[in-house]
């Protein structure tokens, strides 16, 4: 399951481990060699992860083992009661949510949910919601407003499901309404782009007062593959498209699309989800703290202004 570009690192790690085992089994002293290899590993890691291409980051964002919404909820929240269903048509497993306790404070939480393996991924439709998923999200937004609790959304989807069933039930309509509903929240809304932020299906729960992004997550108007298929008529040009789309955390920060990048552990969040969660925990606490004490009207106005200024153009 290793990504192409992390192979050299994993091989070196394996060699170090082997050497350590041999040393301990045979009672030999390889400490000098091991030190050398570790230094080399460190250099290699810095070299590779210090110069990740956009496309490599896209792959990291999709890497199995990277914390999903439920992983993050479990790691960060003291308690979580999952609420299910849209009260109208179905329960969409591609979106999860409920009420939770975060550092002693009750919050309402929602997020796209990918599977952690193939079986789960099929059940969760690879994190691609149908309209009922967004209706569930809207129901949770209602609950946040009703209870006056902060709303936290975790974004991690390749996109809303592009299928016949979803179109029949008004996929575009429900995404529009979810954007609208979220923009009307009278409570602080914090969004975290966890892994993939695929287009409108991501934005539907992305209208936060603050939008954080995990290192190596991406957020874009279109996936690199689809963009390549359209512009270069070849999905294999995805690498070029990923570069051109400026979809990485730093690019988005520069464009004002996100407000803060949550630093990730060396080697990627999929290799050390705990460390990634610890950093996210800190960032979330600080962000919620920032938004405290604002009146419902001020919260609403703050969100309006945040999005109002997005866009780059010239004026004659």
């Amino acid at each position, binding site marked *: 399951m290793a990504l192409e570009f992390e192979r050299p690192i994993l091989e070196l790690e394996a060699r170090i481990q082997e050497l350590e085992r041999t040393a301990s089994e045979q009672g030999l002293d390889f400490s000098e060699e091991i030190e050398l290899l570790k230094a080399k590993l460190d250099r290699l890691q810095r070299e590779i992860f210090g110069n990740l291409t956009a496309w490599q980051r896209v792959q990291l964002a999709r890497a199995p083992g990277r914390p999903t919404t439920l992983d993050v909820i479990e790691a960060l929240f003291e308690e979580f009661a999952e609420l299910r269903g849209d009260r109208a048509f179905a329960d969409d497993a591609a979106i999860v949510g409920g009420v939770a306790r975060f550092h002693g404070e009750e919050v309402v939480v929602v997020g796209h949910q990918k599977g952690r393996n193939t079986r789960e991924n099929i059940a969760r439709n690879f994190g691609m919601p149908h309209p009922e998923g967004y209706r569930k999200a809207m129901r949770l937004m209602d609950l946040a407003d009703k209870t006056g609790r902060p709303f936290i959304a975790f974004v991690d989807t390749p996109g*809303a*499901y*592009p*299928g*016949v069933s*979803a*179109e*029949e*039930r*008004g*996929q*575009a*309509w429900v*995404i*529009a*309404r979810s*954007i*609208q509903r979220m*923009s*009307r929240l009278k409570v602080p809304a914090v969004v975290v782009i966890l892994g993939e932020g695929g*287009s*409108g299906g991501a*934005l*539907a729960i*992305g*209208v936060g007062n603050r939008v954080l992004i995990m290192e190596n997550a991406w*957020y*874009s*108007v*279109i996936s690199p593959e*689809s*963009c390549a298929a*359209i*512009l*270069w008529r070849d999905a294999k040009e995805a690498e070029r498209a990923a570069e*051109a*789309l*400026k*979809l990485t955390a730093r*690019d*988005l920060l520069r*464009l004002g*699309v996100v407000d803060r990048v949550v630093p990730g552990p060396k080697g990627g969040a999929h290799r050390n989800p705990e460390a990634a969660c610890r950093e996210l925990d800190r960032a979330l606490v600080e962000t919620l703290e920032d938004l405290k004490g604002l009146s419902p009207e001020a919260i609403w106005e703050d*969100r*309006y202004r945040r*999005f*109002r200024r*997005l*866009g*780059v*153009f*010239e*004026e*004659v």
Partner: protein
Amino acid sequence: MALDRLFRRRRTRGQAREVPELWVRCAACEAQVYRKDLEQALWVCPECGYHHRISAERWVALLADEGSFEPTTGRVRPADPLGFVDTEPYPERLRRYQEKTGRPDAIHGGRATVGGVPTVLLVMDYAFAGGSMGSVVGEEITRGAELAAEENRALVIVAASGGARMQEGALSLMQMAKTTMALDRLFAKRLPYVSILTDPTTGGVTASFATLADVIFAEPGALVGFAGPRVIKQTIRQDLPEGFQRAEFLQKHGLIDAVVDRRQLKEQLVQTLSLLYPGEGHGA
């Protein structure tokens, strides 16, 4: 339905091929139609009913009361925030579209009255980069809604779009939120918003302001959806149902209020606006 059979044969561009001078060939049924007849019929084929795509200027002429239109768009011009290059640099593309359409980006509109109702009328121009929404379209829609709110006008938007503009990346995506939020300024003043969906309207435009109107009309046969048919076909690996994502399908599925023939559109729009517009004293 006869229309359905025709759409399949329709040429991609959707615009009637203009045979020099007097005759025009219908893009759907290929009938030779006398140009004046077609014009009189608002570019609806008298033979098969196919609604040919018309220019943004023609839309304004069709919907605005005569002499009432006063443009407000055109001062906002696109930039190249990503330094985007695909088969050509984005600024090059823009220049070509600007030359072709004579406007800075894919939107045209302004103040007008419609059946006497003070309105902000905005029309998306499919001829400009497939009506894609980038920063300029988003900003113009937003300003249009704000202007309507400020001057107690109704808002009417004629949508036509392939989706968000890729060349402006996530900034294009953000226009979906921006335009959606701007509508609330209008709604807070009880001002009505009518959306007219034309062929095709997909992607980020459909998934934001275009479907959040008080009343949604669609032109007969217009293809409207979130994902484009090609993407869906790739996903489900089977043929799409007959009439899928067409206006008539949308109405059956409860997504729009009415499929309206272009020749009745102004009348129906006027009635709707006159019933929804708060009138003197209410709007403030």
